[in-house]
């Protein structure tokens, strides 16, 4: 405990409650902890331990070559990006030998971690299924029987590959190939864990599917790989939430998330990212929406040192819809480089991007977005709205929207606003008896309300609580 406290003090701008609430950590008791650094041997070892089919092993090796060959991105926060030492990261850690079959099999120390995160209660209450990722393997996995009977597959990615190789092989890396970018290549080489979901045609999954991810080992990268396929006319809502213990050296998190919404399907993917403030979160998230399908990303970025995450929707079928709703909160030492991409590749497609960001205490929030309309995607509609709130003079807010319109008969609208919390609003609220802190919090909650109202209730509550923690001591 003493040691933890010392380390906590090195991390700037984390409320004291934060450390107690989320900053606990367990002694590292790993069944297997590979060596640091990345090489073809490490990739071979990961693939062998997972007893993967040859095509996946080859895929990993090819991806590693692409990772080596690709240069670091030359845009964004290059200073932080170039500070990543790939040789100083564990690429694979397996906490226990086999996956917990039932709650009783889950080791006590892991249970304790989950208890403090509140997962079992949440599950008992109403969750459909939980895959809680602890380190690189999924240790606990439950599923409601009726969903299983209906043919919904909800597994961790490794089990998905073992049990449904045909589906995985058909769709894996079709949305985000390894050569998409350097970090997607890295993930493709060393991925471990993540969720695999298949929803059969016409099925409406009424209850959101959820997974919690945690990072727990110092210098350890997590490379989840999530693949969600909603077959024709089906509907599914997936929720991913993250909290992480506080550590003193940088940790890398680089996930790849692929969504496929086939004809007429609907996918909503909700994330609240709350990594500790020393974690690099470099994520590739992309969805393909076929004819008349709808994909919605609801994306909250609160934690991490540097987040680069631009959820994308490729509208490839006529009448497809995409919606991306995001908030970013950047505190001291943080850079939230988040945004959205909408690619219109078919006629009559529509997309809507709403982005809200809050910067405080020297934090930097950037909106970076791309809207592209290809020549034949006529009668498409795009609307982009970015609002930024600056809490103090030390903070920074950037907006980098890119719009490339190659078709006629399209309607594009983009708007952005940057402002500070209005003094009149604060004055009004304080004159009604609120303290200045309360007033500010109330205004901020109002500012992000379009986002929170899209979240399931307990997430909205948790998000408001997180913002409250982040805002503590911000006035003065």
């Amino acid at each position: 405990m003493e040691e933890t406290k010392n380390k906590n003090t090195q991390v700037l701008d984390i409320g004291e409650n934060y450390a107690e609430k989320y900053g606990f950590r367990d002694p590292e008791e790993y069944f297997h902890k590979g060596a640091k650094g990345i090489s073809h041997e490490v990739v071979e070892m990961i693939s062998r331990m997972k007893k993967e089919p040859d095509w996946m092993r080859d895929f990993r090796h090819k991806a590693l070559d692409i990772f080596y060959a690709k240069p670091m991105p030359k845009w964004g926060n290059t200073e932080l990006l170039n500070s990543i030492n790939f040789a100083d990261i564990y690429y694979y850690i397996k906490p226990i030998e086999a996956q917990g079959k039932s709650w009783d099999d889950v080791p006590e120390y892991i249970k304790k971690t989950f208890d403090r995160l509140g997962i079992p209660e949440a599950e008992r209450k109403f969750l459909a299924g939980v895959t809680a990722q602890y380190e690189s393997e999924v240790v606990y996995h439950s599923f409601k029987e009726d969903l299983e009977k209906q043919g919904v597959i909800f597994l961790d990615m490794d089990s998905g590959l073992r049990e449904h190789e045909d589906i995985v092989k058909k769709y894996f890396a079709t949305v985000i190939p390894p050569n998409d970018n350097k970090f997607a290549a890295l993930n493709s080489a060393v991925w471990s864990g993540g969720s695999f979901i298949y929803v059969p045609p016409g099925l409406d999954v009424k209850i959101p599917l959820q997974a919690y991810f945690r990072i727990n080992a110092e210098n350890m990268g997590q490379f989840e790989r999530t693949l969600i396929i909603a077959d024709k006319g089906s509907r599914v809502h997936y929720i991913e939430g993250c909290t992480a213990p506080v550590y003193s050296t940088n940790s890398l998190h680089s996930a790849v998330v692929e969504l496929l919404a086939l004809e007429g399907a609907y996918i909503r993917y909700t994330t609240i990212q709350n990594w500790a403030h020393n974690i690099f979160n470099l994520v590739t998230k992309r969805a393909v929406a076929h004819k008349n399908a709808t994909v919605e990303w609801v994306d909250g970025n609160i934690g991490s040192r540097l987040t680069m995450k631009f959820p994308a929707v490729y509208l490839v079928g006529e009448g497809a819809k995409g919606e991306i709703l995001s908030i970013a909160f950047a505190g001291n030492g943080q850079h939230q480089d988040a945004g959205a991409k909408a690619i219109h590749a078919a006629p009559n497609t529509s997309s809507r991007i709403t982005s809200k960001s809050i910067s405080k205490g020297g934090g930097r929030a950037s909106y970076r977005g791309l809207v592209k309309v290809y020549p034949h995607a006529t009668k498409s509609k795009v609307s982009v709205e970015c609002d930024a709130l600056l809490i103090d003079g030390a903070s920074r807010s950037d907006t980098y929207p890119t719009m490339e319109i190659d078709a006629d008969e399209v309607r594009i609208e983009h708007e952005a606003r940057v402002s500070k919390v209005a003094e009149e609003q604060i004055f009004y609220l304080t004159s009604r008896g609120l303290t200045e802190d309360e007033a500010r919090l109330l205004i901020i909650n109002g500012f992000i309300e379009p986002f929170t109202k899209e979240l399931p209730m307990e997430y909205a509550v948790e998000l408001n609580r997180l913002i409250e923690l982040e805002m503590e001591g911000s006035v003065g």
Partner: protein
Amino acid sequence: MTTQTTILEKVKIGFRPLQPGEPDWIYRIRREAWDRYLEQPLPERVQNIWRYTAPESFLAKNIDALMNLYPVVPDGSNGKPYPVTPEYAAIGYNLDNRMTVTKMTPEISAKGVVFKDIYSALRENEGFAGRFLGKLVGASFGKFEALNLALWNTGFFLYIPDNTVIEKPILMNRHPGGQFTMGRLLVVVGRNSEATIIDDYAGECRLEDPAANSVVEIFVGDSSRVRYVNLQRLSSRCSSYITQRAQVEQNGSLYSIFGAMGSALSKVNAGTILNGKGADSRMYGVLFGDNGQHFDYHTMHHHKASESYSNIDFKVILKDKANSAYTGLIRIEKETANCEAYQENRNLLLNKGTRAESIPELEILADQVRCTHGATMGPIDPEMLFYLESRGVARVEAVKMIVGGFVEPTISQIPSDLQPVLRNLVLDKLGSEL
């Protein structure tokens, strides 16, 4: 590598004075800029400002053309009168990329205004004009800007003293010749003065190397009001590259107006640094492209001082495979307070095959700000067209009215004496196409 070396060798032999007896200090600045040009790589396409236009387009096709630029001809009037027409206070001409002619009315020369070709102005007044050369757009600005500083051989210097109001506009006619054209305009306005500058690029590009590279630097002193109009009506064979930077001091104001109709390829990088408290900068753009024309306009407003105000309003009309890339940056520095910055880019796509890109960027490092930007792209609203036609307006007229209505809010913002210039440019272009 070997080609690079050959070029360097050639340059050592070939880099020559602008004119016999060129002052050392000018030669030195140019020579250093030339070295900077040679050592800088081409800009990387990953930067937004080069995302839509290949930098290669602005390289001289052959280095000999660069090294054998015409020498400066300070007074190219050749005995001809070149009168100042009554609507202007002064007129300058650049002819065939070598002759520079400047004429002022006696009234303004009595006020102490200096209007000269840039070479003579620098040569005669190192202590003053020399202080400003390359201060806003120098050799480290970029590869093509370094090239300009190294090889400029035409252009104007304009100085307006303190407390001087020039009511009529000062017109600069720029006619690039057949060669790679290197023009430079340096404007220094003292305190509490007023001037209007019309910088008009027009003409035919005759040879196989039809690129114009132009740099404009404008210094606006305390409480002065300057209006700068940049018209680009070059022939459809030209490619033009214009970098403009202005610096506005305390309570000064600058209106920059861009009208672009010509050139096959036109890249403009225009920016204002709001350097003094209460500085005010507004940029208005009306761009009309057709026939595969490519416009690439970048604007920048850099707020370095408190209570500064900036506004950008760019309207783009495109038809017949024309395309436009607009990128704009607003940056508000730390420790400024109460800055306001607005930016709007609207694109009207008249028919199929046109393309518009827009990247309006914001970088805000202070909290006491009001800042918004917006961008839209779309065709003529069919309902508007239907409404007008149902009232008996012919389609051609209806389109004219709608296009006029699209640019009018921008045009009506600019000083009223300049409005007809832009309005006519749009109508002419529209009229000739319909």
